[in-house]
């Protein structure tokens, strides 16, 4: 069953069509890849699905619900979390706080009073709520092996850890679907290996993973299903060996990579 699919998704900026008529789907509990040369429209597609941008036409469906044009903060509440191509951490805040923010909408619900009133009136309640957030955040930090560094400012982490922290923050929202935008960019081979095992462990938690990546070794290694975009159009999809043999894909990449 497709957890997420788009129907004829198109995004044009003025005359430039960044994504054109793309039918694209992600199977539940899979690790899927979205690849294509630079400027193929991968990030645009990501942004249109996660509510950071609104499609010109076409629709996006998640769990069979039409989520086209739903703003990003609601999409993340529906169960889609993401990371960014150029890391967007809350730099001055601690590692722990970064992950705690991921718990934002999972906490603070109150039946009667608003949250502001809640925070002001009941110290005990606030404290127990904070404790839940804190405990959960530390569990996720454990999962990513970042717990030791929890009181460091996020900007002081080594690069590879910053990337993983961004994933940890996204995972703290307990998504069904995790979008990773070039997670291995700038990583050295050891960091990439570690990332691959992390992604597999995330999938083992029952989370579906979709990633954009240029590192073909990583993509061919861990993705079960790959979609290829070129010039905003979908040119191929299939499993890694199919994609590697596909003449259209080879053509799209030839002269660029090899």
């Amino acid at each position, binding site marked *: 069953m497709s957890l997420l699919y788009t129907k004829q998704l198109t995004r044009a900026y003025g005359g430039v069509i960044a994504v054109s008529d793309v039918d694209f789907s992600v199977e539940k509990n899979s690790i899927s890849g979205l690849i294509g040369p630079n400027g193929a429209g991968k*990030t645009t597609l990501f*942004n249109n699905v996660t509510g*950071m*941008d609104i499609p010109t036409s076409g629709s996006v469906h998640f769990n069979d619900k039409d989520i086209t044009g739903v703003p990003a903060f609601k999409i993340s509440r529906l169960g889609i979390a993401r990371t*960014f*191509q150029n890391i967007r951490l809350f730099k001055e805040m601690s590692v722990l706080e970064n992950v705690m923010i991921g718990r934002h909408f999972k906490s603070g619900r109150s039946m009667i009073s608003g949250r502001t009133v809640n925070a002001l009136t009941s110290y005990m309640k606030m404290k127990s709520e904070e404790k839940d957030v804190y405990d959960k955040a530390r569990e996720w930090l454990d999962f990513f092996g970042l717990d030791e560094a929890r009181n460091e400012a996020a900007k002081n982490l080594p690069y590879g850890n910053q990337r993983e922290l961004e994933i940890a923050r996204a995972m703290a929202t307990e998504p069904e679907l995790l979008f990773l935008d070039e997670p291995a960019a700038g990583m050295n081979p050891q960091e990439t290996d570690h990332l691959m095992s992390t992604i597999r462990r995330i999938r083992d938690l029952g989370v579906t993973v979709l990633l954009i990546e240029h590192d073909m070794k990583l993509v061919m290694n861990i993705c079960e299903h790959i979609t290829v975009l070129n010039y905003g159009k979908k040119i191929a999809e299939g499993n890694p060996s199919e994609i590697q043999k596909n003449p259209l894909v080879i053509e799209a990449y030839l002269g660029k990579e090899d």
Partner: protein
Amino acid sequence: MGSISEVFQHLLNGLTLGGIYALIALGYTMVYGILKFINFAHGEILMVGAYVGMFAFDFLRGDMPYGPLMLVVFFIAMIIAMIISAVLGMAIEKIAYKPLRKATRLAPLLSAIGVSFILSNLAAYIWGTKSRKFDYPFDNTAYNIGGVAITPHQILILVVSMILMIGLKLYIDKTRMGKAMRATSLDQDVAALMGIDVNKVISLTFAIGSGLAATAGILVALDFKVYPTMGAMAGLKAFVAAVVGGIGNITGAMVGGILLGLLETFGVAVLGIPQGLKDTIAFGILIIILLVKPEGLLGKAEREKV
């Protein structure tokens, strides 16, 4: 609404006011185009320019009678004011903004507010808070053309602002340095890689913007005198003009300035908005524009890259 000649009268008044706004707005827009921040101290540079112009003019003319020679002296004083303001603008950039280029967005803004405070209060300390008269370099008796009263001062404003705006437009569109400025405003890093001396471009931008502000300051001062806080309101409104036209867009600043001048004049004359609330018109327009078309009339919508 009154007769045709009345309409023309308001049109003329609006255009002259707008010409001044446009001159000031250019400085905001050029700096924003390149550094992406609002130079809060721009209005104070205008004020300093007006003072310098006044002192230079008073010193040079002695007790010269009205005449062509006096106009020449006036323009010399204006050029002196432009040069000194340009130097001041560049110095401010070097001292208060340059160290903050890599800082958060808030930092240069706060620093600029600081600079503007320092300048206006320093001026009040040195030159006193009393407003001083900037004498007309000519007999400012209005001519009457078909029922429309036009003063030599208005002619001066129209001619000077027209020449400067056309000159600037040509400079930016046609010269090498102009091209470098446009390139820098598009992408500073790439411009630097292409061998453009970005620091020089930024300095030049501040110099030109400050020079234009000095001119505008002198033109305003002829009617409204010179005083330490004269830059604040003029600067604010010109900023509104820059936003209305599309901040970062040079033609937009000109259009926005003239439009704001016309709207204010007609707002008071035709819609009967009380004079006391005249300044409110500009801010009302600002808030409406920001809501409806935040990129301004001629600006391009900027999308933050995700």
